[in-house]
């Protein structure tokens, strides 16, 4: 199932030497063609990626070492590591950092769990599965503006439906302020994030499940294994690499979470739902401290990258890492 099993070499090149990258010995026509093919397959994506992702990113990196109100380029002052030093003593940043970690753990458990259970459940091919699959995708399809509008009103203590619903169920003591309550706002953000993103992860898992040949499951069944055992011993191992990938995506998306918090609470009340991305945005755009805001986002990116690299290595997402 792992990468190197599938990795093949070109038919023309089945000599052992071909596995060791561009060799030093004179490259023949085959080697030339191999390179050409590599460039053709990888070049376009890499070109656009460098030109339109890495170049602006480099710009942001450079800005993070400056003090810049962001109005005209002449106002840029190079301040070295000052922004990062200030960040180390910024209470709101550390609060946001903690929120990010809490949301990260929550999202990995809740989002991956829900997506996996639903993907497996939909794979049972019960009648109406494709209908439910379509329904579960819906939140991921709609814009976050809709989420903000609908849940902003829904959770409102004076207009919304959540509190009346709790009271109708005899759970009136759980009614509350939700987005205005510092103790509840973060769990609420986690739930809303799950609501609006689990469909993506569920779909990625389903797409992989579909590709598992039926005969594998049937063979297991003939051997007398029940379905749960089939899932446990046959399906889950086959899904492993996809689950690993989904968890990575969940983690990345949770760490860079911005829009949802921005539209629901802007980080409030009083920073109780602040995350690093919203704090960086506030500093960069609202507070016109583009240098400091960029530094905040750069720290977030570096943090994410470190965690992701550890994760990728730990779970051997690629055997060559």
């Amino acid at each position, binding site marked *: *199932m792992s990468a190197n099993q599938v990795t093949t070499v070109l038919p023309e090149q089945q000599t052992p030497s071909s596995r060791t990258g561009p060799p030093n010995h004179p490259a023949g026509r085959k080697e030339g063609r191999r390179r050409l*093919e590599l460039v053709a397959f990888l070049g376009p994506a890499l070109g*656009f990626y460098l030109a*339109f992702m890495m170049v*602006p990113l480099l710009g942001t990196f450079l800005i993070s070492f400056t003090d810049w109100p962001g109005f005209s380029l002449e106002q840029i002052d190079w301040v070295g590591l000052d922004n990062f030093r200030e960040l180390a003593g910024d209470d709101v940043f550390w609060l946001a950092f903690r929120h990010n970690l809490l949301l990260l753990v929550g999202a990995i458990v809740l989002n991956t769990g829900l997506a996996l259970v639903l993907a497996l*459940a939909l794979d049972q091919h019960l009648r109406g599965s494709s209908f439910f699959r379509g329904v579960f995708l819906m939140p991921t399809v*709609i814009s976050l503006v809709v989420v903000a509008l609908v849940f902003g009103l829904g959770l409102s203590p004076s207009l919304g439906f959540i509190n009346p619903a709790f009271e109708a169920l005899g759970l009136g003591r759980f009614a509350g302020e939700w987005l205005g309550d510092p103790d509840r706002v973060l769990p609420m953000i986690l739930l809303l994030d799950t609501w609006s993103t689990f469909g993506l992860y569920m779909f990625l898992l389903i*797409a992989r499940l579909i590709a598992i040949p039926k005969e594998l499951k049937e063979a297991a069944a003939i051997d007398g294994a029940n379905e749960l055992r089939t899932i446990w011993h046959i399906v889950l191992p086959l899904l492993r690499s996809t689950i690993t990938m989904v968890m990575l995506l969940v983690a990345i998306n949770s760490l860079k979470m911005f829009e949802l918090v921005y539209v629901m609470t802007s980080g409030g009340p009083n920073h109780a739902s602040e995350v690093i991305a919203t704090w960086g945005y506030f500093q960069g755009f609202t507070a016109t401290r583009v240098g400091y805001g960029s530094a905040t986002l750069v720290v977030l990116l570096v943090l994410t990258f470190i965690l992701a690299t550890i994760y990728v290595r730990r779970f051997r997402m690629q055997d060559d890492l």
Partner: protein
Amino acid sequence: MTSETLSPPRSETGESTRRPSGRSLSTVAKAVLLYPVFIALSVIIIFPLLWMFYSSFKSNTDIFADVFALPKSLYLDNYKEVFQLAGLGSFFKSSVIVSLVSVLGLLALSTTAAYAFAFMEFRGKSLLFLLFLLGLMVPPQALIISGYGWMSVLGILDTYWALIFTYFGWSAFGILVLRNAFEGLPREISDSAKVDGAGHWARFWYIVLPLSRPSTATVAIFLFMWIWNDFLYPLVYLQSEERYTLPLGIMFLNGQYAPEWGLQMAGLTVATAVPLIVYYVLQKQFVRGIMAGALKG
């Protein structure tokens, strides 16, 4: 949790897996167990959207009066205003052009790159892959200011290209997902191609792509959603109203000092309809993918 709840009907499963011709106990048990979950989740998902839909048929005053009541009569003025919105047609056109070109381009970029990562050997592969992963982690708002400067240097500010090229830089998601899918393809299949002596292009086009259609469709669906709903980049990169995309155009419906909820709901309903339709079209790919899997399997 499924493991405990599903275990009782184990003995029947051996016979029932063939095809669901005979309704086995296990199917019934599954239904009893899963339908309530499915339905409860569906309610949590559908109700808010349904509410948006029926609220779009209420006047602003009626929404103010009772936010969650059903409309008393079919109030169509919101839709009239949305469709009379100067430029709705052109907003739509812009969104369609940008989304289609970007998604098709991105699919081409990420399928080929994913193929290279899955089936080709080259030096620095894992480092390059990590570099792409980095792109997945960049918060989009971090690139707005330098991106704007860059577009202005390239002279493509206020053109569709500014958006399309920017989105072309977002290939990391597709590459990650499709690499995973390609590497998960049964080994015999790629090997059989090898035996046939097919080159990379042939193998990519005739074997790998058709077999990973469900994953490619998934990637396509989500790329389309993101680009269609994206607000930040069009807001900053586009300046002429005639090039506005739909999310930007819909912003016109929101008042500066008072919420125009009815109008917004109508606008959002229209804007949401498109991604849903796209999904239902692409979901055929999914079904086809299932059937293809069944045939091969």
